[in-house]
């Protein structure tokens, strides 16, 4: 666009990678720290980046159950990979957070609170499944009677640059969960990267006023029909190339009626209760609190830290853990994600990002476990028997 007429929301534009660098610089000038994917120790993690060159340029990831490695691509795509072990909850919901300190004064004590002001963060490369995960956390942490203040303030201080997925990964199943591969809402701007004979272009869609005003600093070209249909084509192809899929029909009821299915014993024998799945999951929100004092017991503090339903302590009450067996803990996790979450927060707790499959050291696959329960569902068995008659 040559004239600087004000754009409106969802008016598609095209920018180059150089303009993306400008865009980042603009955000930095407005006080945002840019957080994005970057390669560290052969894994794509999330960290502060200086510009697009810090992104995993020309890298892609190969993922499968208990398997992850990076590979070179024939081009220099900025976003040719999917999600790594970390998710944005690392920033929105820090692994450790001090809640308050207390100082003793004779027999009384006084509470002091100095929670840090959450920084202004610009998230780069947020995938559609991760936008869905953030929307879920919004409901869990700020949608009820009590709300997580740090999370709420960090969310208000966050600018989101989403990226649509044209190259789904080996453990992805967002298409089954209705969360991807195209972002529908929850972003300030969203990019679709198109690398082909016509060059390296980024199709931009703005989703918020903040996105619009950040974009207004660039002289972006209006998107042609050609690139728009090219992007559409890439995204519909991506939807058909997911590494995994999950049949969600009747899933909540299926799991509720199979609480005592003997099949849980099989997965219970494989699960190490290591808690990896809960730590990598972008929606797992459980925390524990830790109360500590200094040596003289004059000062005390409370911290909260991520916790996992896979530990024994998690459900400990006087007399012992409520869920001593691995089977019961795996069942709790899966049933919470895919069934109880609907009752509690009005949606599934799983967005199909595949992390729990990739990072499980023994390759337990949530989609396979659901299939197995489905196959061993006694109710289903009767239905098929009847229909055979």
């Amino acid at each position, binding site marked *: 666009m040559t004239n600087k007429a004000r754009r409106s929301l969802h008016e598609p534009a095209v920018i180059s990678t150089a303009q993306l660098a400008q865009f980042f610089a603009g955000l930095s000038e407005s006080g945002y720290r840019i957080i994005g994917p970057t390669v560290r120790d052969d894994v794509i993690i999330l960290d502060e980046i200086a510009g697009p060159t810090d992104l995993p340029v020309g890298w892609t990831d190969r993922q499968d159950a208990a398997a992850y490695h990076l590979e070179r691509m024939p081009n220099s795509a900025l976003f040719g990979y999917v999600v790594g072990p970390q998710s944005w909850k690392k920033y929105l919901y820090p692994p450790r*957070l001090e*809640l*308050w300190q*207390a100082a003793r004064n004779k*027999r*009384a*004590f006084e*509470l002091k*609170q100095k*929670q840090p002001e959450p920084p202004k963060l610009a998230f780069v490369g947020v995938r559609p499944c991760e936008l869905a995960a953030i*929307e879920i956390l*919004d*409901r869990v*942490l*700020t949608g*009820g*009677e*009590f*709300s*997580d*203040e*740090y999370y*709420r303030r960090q*969310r*208000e201080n*966050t600018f*989101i640059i989403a990226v649509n997925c044209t190259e789904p990964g080996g453990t992805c199943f967002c298409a089954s969960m209705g969360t991807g591969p195209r972002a529908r*809402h929850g*972003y*300030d701007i969203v990019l679709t990267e198109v690398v082909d004979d016509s060059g390296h272009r980024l199709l931009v869609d703005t989703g*918020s006023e903040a996105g619009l005003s950040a974009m207004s600093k660039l002289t972006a070209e209006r998107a042609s029909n050609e690139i728009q249909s090219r992007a559409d084509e890439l995204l519909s192809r991506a939807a058909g190339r997911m590494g995994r899929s999950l049949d969600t029909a009747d899933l909540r009821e299926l799991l509720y009626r199979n*609480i*005592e299915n003997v099949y849980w014993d099989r997965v219970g024998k494989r699960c190490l209760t290591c808690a990896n799945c809960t730590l990598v999951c972008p929606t797992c929100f*459980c*925390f*524990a*609190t830790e*109360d500590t*004092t200094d040596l003289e*017991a004059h000062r*005390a503090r409370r911290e*909260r830290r991520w*916790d996992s*339903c896979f530990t024994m302590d*998690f*459900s*400990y*009450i*006087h007399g012992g853990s*409520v*869920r*001593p067996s691995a*089977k*019961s803990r795996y069942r*709790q996790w899966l*049933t*919470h994600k895919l*069934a*109880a979450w609907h009752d*509690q927060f009005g949606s599934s707790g799983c967005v199909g990002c595949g992390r729990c499959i990739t990072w499980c050291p023994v390759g337990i696959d949530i989609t396979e476990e659901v299939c197995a329960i489905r196959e061993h569902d006694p109710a289903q068995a009767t239905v098929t028997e009847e229909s055979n008659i």
Partner: protein
Amino acid sequence: MAGLPEKDLVDTGGISGMIAPRPFVIRRIERDTADTFTLRLKSGSDRNGLHFEPGQFNMLYVFGVGEVPLSISGDPAKPQFLVHTTRVVGPVTGALHRLKTGDMVGIRGPFGKGWPVDEAEGNDIVVIAGGIGLAPLRPALYHLLAHRKKYGRIVLLYGARTPADILYRRELEKWRARFDLEVEVTVDRGDESWWGNVGVVTTLVPRSPFDPLNAVALICGPEVMMRFAVMALRKKGMNIDDIYVSMERNMKCGVGLCGHCQFGPKFVCKNGPVFSYETLKNLFNKREI
């Protein structure tokens, strides 16, 4: 940014997912039994005390040691005194036991949904308690007796391990002398001074004088005891939606955010701890939920 649910935020004291513990001072300590004691606390900051509903609980913080969920065991009509009855079982309850009159504790609460004392008006009431389970039921009993005319027959069935473990002994004796309240106490193991019932509390249900079709049952105790109590009440003809139980799960926040207290789709801290048995029936008899 985009998409945060809009709502009126409750004052969370600015603390993530928590409200800040408020100071309370211990005014009186009663040693109920060898391992159980009752604290009478007064708010250090609020003259009006802590209004609560029978069956609600607080998170009680002992400086530097930790925080535990404890049901309120006092009289809801006297909120200026906060009363907690605690059995010593571990580090936090042990540290609480070592505190003296004049010491301070932190209180967050009251939390949760309590006993359905209003909905139960017009009915007979059967209160079944096991061990320390009498503590969360005492506020309900105070309420029932304060509004005695609104209820039919009221029965209290209480089981303790031994005669020495009987909680609130003086109060139970006073209640037993009333004509408008039926009190039955049983112990698992008697001693030479014991002339009363011996056996688990559920054995008292069959001959208890209430009308099963017009009664509401309030039960609190170990999960196995509650399971048998429900069976005994069902056998007597009670409807499952007239039976209420108070659940116990690990709790870290008390406000539905830490995830620890989940029982199937329910958060015990905010959907309970008191539940109608009807809402739990699909999970209550299953193991390791």
